[in-house]
């Protein structure tokens, strides 16, 4: 088992667009579940069937009678195991789940007193939380054993929304508030600003919980060998996984190797050290046997991390000319049962609250609440969609109230290109942008005027279905946060003339094997087929940060470019020493060093020497290190046209245009592909995806992917992806992150289009996903202009006061819909 499965041979790539393609198209890809390790045990978890409760009893004994079951352990059983024989670890009890300080996703303060045990000790806090781990000779036997485990849980009332968690009437952690973190950005805005503004839009938005749903669920295979432990996992941050596992197992980091083979998608959801991973690694070390956990879909739908999960309240003020005066965003975030992975994630939304506008006053507040749901964690967009959707929905409402073209309203308020770098009131320093150019291209591509004419026509035609146009301009952040803006990379030249590039990133479908060698080859001026990439292997590349936050091209790519540049310098220095000439006398071109003057025969016989010969003559050559990059702020403008059937409540997106700007593009086809796929995920949030909860707080997902509706081809409208390219001055390649744009920009464009089609007076009636139920009800609500000023709607109630939701419509239905049935009738829409 070595990390060189990605092909050490010089690649024949002509008939394949990407180096990854041949193996993935012929069944030769290797994902964790494909690995054949003799004697490997399969882990299966017995899980809680309630959302919140007290564990009274667990009995694993019957599982041991099942043929092929090696063992079954509760938390108590694992603290009573005999000390471990393996010297790599000094294992005592099963360690708890670690928390993530990276990007301020969690904080010491938030996790204090809120331990997350790998297996439930006494309190169940989310549905599906693991009670027992069963190991079997194969998956069938392990599941046979799991079926024999008995347990008893006394249920407690469950809280599954931030609004119900906030009042602490049910506490997840005894003696501690459910509010696990409070934060803010910007300065509080004086009441006089709102009072004196010509127009103030107030609204509430629900950013529903989403399931990232990579096609491959989570995987881990832990193989102990002597004092060492090799871990294979479909993962975005192998070095972090290695460090955390080594720490938890009480062993040395050097003895743990993490390898990421082919990974079937991640979208942010595969970068943590999950409870199940710890149980598997712990038992592999304890038993001295290979153990794997291949999560299945129903398990993933129950206990994999969620994305989004915010209840938002906004106020947006403008003068009569449409100049923005102030924007306020209050976030009540649902962070799930434990604060370890994402208690600080909503701060991303607060930091990005300013959006692309030169609003003088912006203030955002965050309350992160623990609830009886699986934890929230980054999912493609990770905090930026929530910021963009809230602001962009408000902008379209504001335009309607001002009687102004929403495009013109935006143009009037964009931060102009000459104002970059731009310090936002919410603590970001935008690197570069030309927001108007992106919007103009989007409108032109859409045929904005043509669709406006069609919309006008339909409004006078009683037989026509209403049609709406929605815009959404966004700015996001890529690369990560300070402290994580670096990456490790190296380039090694071999005696046969080939080169190996190593990087601390890990691909889960982003074509790194194709893009990165091309980048290195271009820097060196050599043929791309000579360069291969090794990544996602801590044995090959001991330090690394990983692939998340759209950082691989921006940060990892820059690191590789710099490593390649260092290799050129090293080659020139060696040639200079060899030829006994000053370095300035040695030039590099096309993979060859040669004297600046004379060429063949000059300088005491020195001739041009290619890299292979230089390595043969002077010894192994591998250069690299740690390279720092900057944050970048990609942006774009999305526009959607949607037709609504008010009788059926159905939405048909007729056209979607996404203009994205991620600075310098390394590989247009790859960026285009990711932008397209991302837009489709954005459509999923806008129209289809949501988790219905039962009264008891358990998700109603018995039919799996027939209950949680991912977009299929039948739901894909005509989508056009275009780009503008504004280089980033803060990153060495000028590249900004790509691939999250659709999740960020698309949802608001679609919701705005539906709101425009229905001309609904209270936009809060349209909460995502816009299912036929939601749309049908909104279609029957008062239209804009029918009930005085729409702005008054926002003033009818304070977000967070449960009773008000019912009055405002069926908000609860759209929030944790299904959980309270008809939230409006129940009068507690938040519950």
């Amino acid at each position, binding site marked *: 088992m070595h990390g060189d499965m990605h092909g050490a041979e010089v690649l024949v790539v002509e008939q394949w667009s990407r180096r990854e393609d041949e193996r993935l198209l012929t069944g030769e890809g290797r994902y964790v579940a*494909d690995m054949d390790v003799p004697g490997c045990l399969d882990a299966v978890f017995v899980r809680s069937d309630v959302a919140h409760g007290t564990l009274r009893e667990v009995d694993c004994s019957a599982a041991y009678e099942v043929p092929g079951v090696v063992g079954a352990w509760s938390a108590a059983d694992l603290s009573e195991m005999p000390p471990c024989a393996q010297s790599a670890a000094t294992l005592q009890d099963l360690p708890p789940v670690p928390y993530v300080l990276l990007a301020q996703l969690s904080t010491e303060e938030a996790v204090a007193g809120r331990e997350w045990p790998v297996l439930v000790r006494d309190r169940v806090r989310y549905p599906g939380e693991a009670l027992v781990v069963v190991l079997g000779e194969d998956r069938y036997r392990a599941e046979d054993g799991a079926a024999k485990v008995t347990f008893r849980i006394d249920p407690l009332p469950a809280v599954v929304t931030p609004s119900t968690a906030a009042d602490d009437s049910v506490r997840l952690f005894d003696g501690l508030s459910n509010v696990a973190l409070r934060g803010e950005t910007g300065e509080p805005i004086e009441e006089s600003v709102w009072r004196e503004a010509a127009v103030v839009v107030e609204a509430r938005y629900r950013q529903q919980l989403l399931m990232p749903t990579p096609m491959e669920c989570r995987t881990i295979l832990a193989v102990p060998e002597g004092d060492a432990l090799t871990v294979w996992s479909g993962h975005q941050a192998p070095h972090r996984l290695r460090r955390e596992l080594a720490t938890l197992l009480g062993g040395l980091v050097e003895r743990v190797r993490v390898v990421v083979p*082919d990974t079937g998608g991640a979208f942010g959801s595969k970068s943590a050290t999950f409870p199940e991973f710890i149980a598997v690694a712990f038992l592999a070390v304890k038993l001295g046997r290979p153990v794997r956990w291949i999560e299945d879909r129903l398990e993933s739908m129950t206990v994999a991390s969620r994305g989004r999960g915010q209840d938002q309240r906004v106020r947006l003020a403008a003068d009569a000319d449409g100049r923005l005066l102030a924007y306020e965003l209050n976030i009540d975030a649902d962070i799930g049962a434990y604060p370890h992975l994402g208690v600080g994630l909503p701060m991303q939304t607060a930091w990005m609250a300013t959006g692309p506008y030169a609003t003088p006053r912006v203030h955002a507040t965050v309350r992160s609440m623990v609830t009886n749901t699986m934890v929230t964690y980054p999912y493609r967009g990770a905090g930026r969609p929530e910021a963009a959707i809230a602001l962009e929905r408000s902008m379209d409402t504001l335009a309607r109230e001002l009687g102004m073209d929403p495009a013109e309203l935006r143009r009037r308020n964009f931060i102009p290109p000459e104002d970059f770098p731009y310090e936002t009131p919410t603590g970001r320093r935008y690197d570069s942008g030309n927001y108007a150019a992106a919007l103009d291209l989007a409108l032109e591509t859409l045929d904005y005027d043509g669709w406006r004419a069609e919309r006008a026509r339909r409004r006078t035609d009683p037989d026509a279905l209403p049609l709406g146009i929605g815009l959404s301009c966004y700015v996001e952040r890529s690369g990560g946060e300070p402290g994580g803006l670096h990456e490790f990379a190296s380039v090694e030249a071999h005696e046969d003339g080939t080169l190996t590039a190593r990087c601390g990133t890990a691909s889960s479908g982003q074509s790194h094997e194709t893009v990165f060698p091309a980048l290195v080859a271009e820097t060196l001026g050599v043929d791309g087929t000579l360069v291969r990439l090794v990544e996602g292997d801590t044995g090959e590349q001991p330090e690394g940060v990983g692939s998340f936050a759209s950082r691989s091209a921006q940060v990892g790519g820059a690191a590789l470019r710099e490593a390649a540049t260092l290799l050129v310098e090293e080659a020139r220095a060696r040639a200079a020493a060899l030829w006994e000439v000053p370095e300035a006398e040695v030039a590099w071109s096309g993979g060859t060093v040669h004297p600046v003057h004379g060429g063949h025969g000059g300088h005491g016989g020195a001739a041009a020497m290619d890299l292979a010969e230089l390595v043969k003559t002077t010894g192994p050559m591998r250069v690299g290190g740690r390279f720092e990059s900057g944050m970048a702020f990609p942006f774009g403008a999305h526009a959607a046209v949607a037709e609504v059937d008010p009788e059926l409540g159905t939405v048909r997106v007729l056209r979607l245009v996404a203009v994205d700007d991620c600075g310098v593009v390394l590989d247009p086809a790859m960026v285009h592909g990711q932008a397209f796929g*991302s837009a489709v995920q954005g459509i999923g949030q806008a129209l289809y995806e949501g988790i219905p909860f039962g009264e008891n707080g358990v998700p109603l997902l018995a039919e799996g992917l027939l209950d949680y509706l991912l977009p299929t081809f039948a739901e894909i409208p005509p989508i056009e992806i275009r780009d503008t390219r504004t280089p980033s001055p803060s990153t060495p390649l000028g590249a900004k992150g790509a691939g999250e744009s659709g999740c960020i920009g698309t949802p608001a464009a679609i919701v705005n289009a539906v709101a425009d089609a229905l001309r609904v007076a209270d936009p809060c009636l349209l909460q995502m996903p816009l299912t036929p139920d939601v749309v049908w009800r909104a279609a029957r609500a008062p239209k804009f202009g029918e009930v005085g000023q729409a702005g008054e709607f926002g003033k009818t109630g304070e977000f967070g006061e449960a009773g008000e939701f019912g009055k405002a419509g069926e908000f609860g239905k759209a929030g944790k819909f299904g959980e309270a049935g008809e939230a409006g009738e129940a009068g507690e829409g938040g519950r």
Partner: protein
Amino acid sequence: MRITVTVNGEERALDVEPRRVLADVLREDCRLTGTHLGCEHGVCGACTVLVDGEAVRSCLVLAVQCDGASVRTVEGLSGPGGEPHPLQRAFSAEHALQCGFCTPGFLMVAAGALEADPSAGDDPERVAALVGSNICRCTGYEPIRRAIARAASEWPRTPS
């Protein structure tokens, strides 16, 4: 239970528990791991294989039901000597895969339809139905649609 299944043209005598699904037997017993399990309840289609030429969710079929049948997996798509199948070439050319996990299922759904009737690829509605039968989370499907249409246009149409 002893069964005989022809897998990618090779006859295999297998001794399998009756409860084992075809996907597990292909992956674990035959070590043909190109067939992927994405949902295990018949929705996503990643595990699609051809059983006697028909596209089948191999997570919903018991291996014993395939006794005497001929099964074709993604490993059996390439021609003799490893010549890529038109669908494999087209998927690469159209960037119809990113992470590649769902890809074998889409390839087999399309292969089953086009091999039964190459003209299926000329009809946009039939192509749409093929693409709409499986789930992909990376590409947004449009490249997969283009790839199937492209493969169909390059399909050898002479009767064999």
